[in-house]
């Protein structure tokens, strides 16, 4: 079972909930679970999770290189490129690929009649496996700074996930392609929100996205305590499962700032997480 932890709005507590679920599952329930940090732009799970052994693999794409001696400046590559990544000025015999815009699809080299385009490998990110006592329990996808291809790194990270047991995806914020890359591969989507107008607005967007993808889903309210009624009205009107509420305490925010897993910091939170897990798995997992 693959569970994606998402939010729409950033900073609502995706990583807190992901690491909390992971901790309760693995340490307390002794369950076979793997955590994937799919927030490739800003991966943070590693701050909370310790390991005795890390192995990394590069994520590469193929970037075309146009050989100026073979190129006849016919323009076929420029015309086929859907990402406007090829600059061609036949008058001065100039043809070059703008690497940052290239998606590495290979269409240009396919259409080139002169065989003037060869491809070079370019790393865009890194996938790291964190081992503990020989168990591959945490995988992080990390985009190289400057690359715009976060979605590719996320997809490849998910390809590294184990095929059995429970896998948790700490997803990126937002509702666009990077999130879809994670959510579309999940069986269940946990939407973490906070009781503020921003939290609710972005929750609606996320819920619409998840419904469109046809995924089972539920809500966790983090930083609860503010009695923000519109959020509760939204949840009950739309008949969305409320998986659990994690209270707001300033001391939690302080513990988080130091990189502590909150379920370790306050064992009292354990019951809330077990309740969330029971709701997700309908009582089947534990």
């Amino acid at each position, binding site marked *: 079972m693959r569970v994606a932890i998402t939010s*729409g*709005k*950033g*900073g*609502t507590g995706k*990583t807190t909930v992901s690491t909390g679920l992971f901790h309760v599952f693995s340490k307390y329930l002794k369950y076979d679970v793997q955590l994937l940090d799919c*927030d*490739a*732009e*800003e991966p*943070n799970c590693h*701050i909370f999770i310790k390991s005795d052994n890390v192995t990394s693999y590069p994520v590469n794409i193929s970037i075309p290189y146009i050989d100026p001696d073979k190129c006849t400046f016919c323009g076929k590559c420029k015309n*086929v490129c*859907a*990402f406007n990544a090829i600059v061609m000025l036949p008058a001065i015999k100039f043809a070059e690929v703008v690497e*940052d815009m290239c*998606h*590495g*699809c*290979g*269409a240009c080299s*396919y*259409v080139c009649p002169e065989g003037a385009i060869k491809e070079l490998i370019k790393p865009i990110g890194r996938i790291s496996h964190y081992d503990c006592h020989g168990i591959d329990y945490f995988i992080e996808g990390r*985009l190289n*700074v*400057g*690359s*715009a*291809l*976060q*979605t590719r790194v996320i*997809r490849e990270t998910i390809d590294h996930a184990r095929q059995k047991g429970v896998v948790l995806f700490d997803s*990126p*914020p*937002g*509702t*666009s*392609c*990077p*999130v*879809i890359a994670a959510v579309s591969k999940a069986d269940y989507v946990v939407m973490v929100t906070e009781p*503020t*107008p*921003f939290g609710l*607005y*972005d929750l609606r*967007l996320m819920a*619409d*996205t998840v419904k*469109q*993808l046809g995924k089972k889903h539920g809500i966790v309210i983090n930083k609860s305590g*503010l009695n*923000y009624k519109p959020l509760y009205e939204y949840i009950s009107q739309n008949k969305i499962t409320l998986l659990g509420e994690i209270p707001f305490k*300033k001391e939690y*925010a*302080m513990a*988080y*700032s*130091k*990189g502590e897993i909150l379920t370790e910091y306050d064992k009292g939170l354990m019951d809330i997480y077990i309740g969330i897990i029971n709701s997700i798995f309908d009582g089947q997992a534990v």
Partner: protein
Amino acid sequence: MGKPFEIVVLSGKGGTGKTSITAAFALLAENAVITDCDVDAADLHLILSPVVYKSENFASGSKAVIDRERCTACGFCPELCRFEAIEFKNNGYYVDEYACEGCGLCKEVCPVGAVNILKYENNRIYFSNSRFGPMVYGKLGIAEENSGRLVSRIRQYAQETAKKTRARYILTDGPPGIGCPVISSVTGSDLVIAVTEPTRSGWHDLQRLIEMTGRFKTPVLVIINKYDLNKDMTITIENNLKGKGIKVSGKIPYDETMIRSLLEGKTINEFKPHGTIAYELSRIWEAIV
């Protein structure tokens, strides 16, 4: 009248207070065009309550669709597709719309012309007036991709609006992260204000953001929000930034008034104009301009 000064507010990590701070700056700027480029989860309009006078659709990307009547299942396109976006099911090939990047290679290789490329036009751009000036913002369609292109278009419209209204500033609420939409927000702008928080995550993410903006040679100023949540971390961040030659323009204390102003749909400077935060934000803004 010169070119308006473009300021983009970013954070790396989400939830550090980017939008609340941008809203306060929108009030303080007095003569700005405001944009929200966090098109995935645009929230600034919830505080500024702008009145929309015009909106338009925007196509951000394309997807391939296979015409099952024509497809002979030759297998060329799935073999050449680098995004593993063509799958075989129910005795035929289908495009996984969430994996497809719309490159069009499948259309090129198809021997029977069975592939069509469709434009996705579910995004919207809004032109509006807020109580602090003109505002341009976008909304990504559900499950849409490529917010980078939408961001570029919003900024282009903001520049046109600024020219008409002779605005001195363009103030942008940017997206979280460091990927495609952030790169589109930073390209060609004059100043990045990075809002961070004194947490290990916040600092980790800020360092990646600074490295990213460094590639564009855009100057960066940092605001540490909720700085008293972890004063040791605040000092660590300040010292490290000093080493990098980056200025901390100000520090804002943790205060629930921020959330209460949000619940009322007001900027902190309207909600509590004589409070510490309002004072500090005014000071920061004066120092910036």
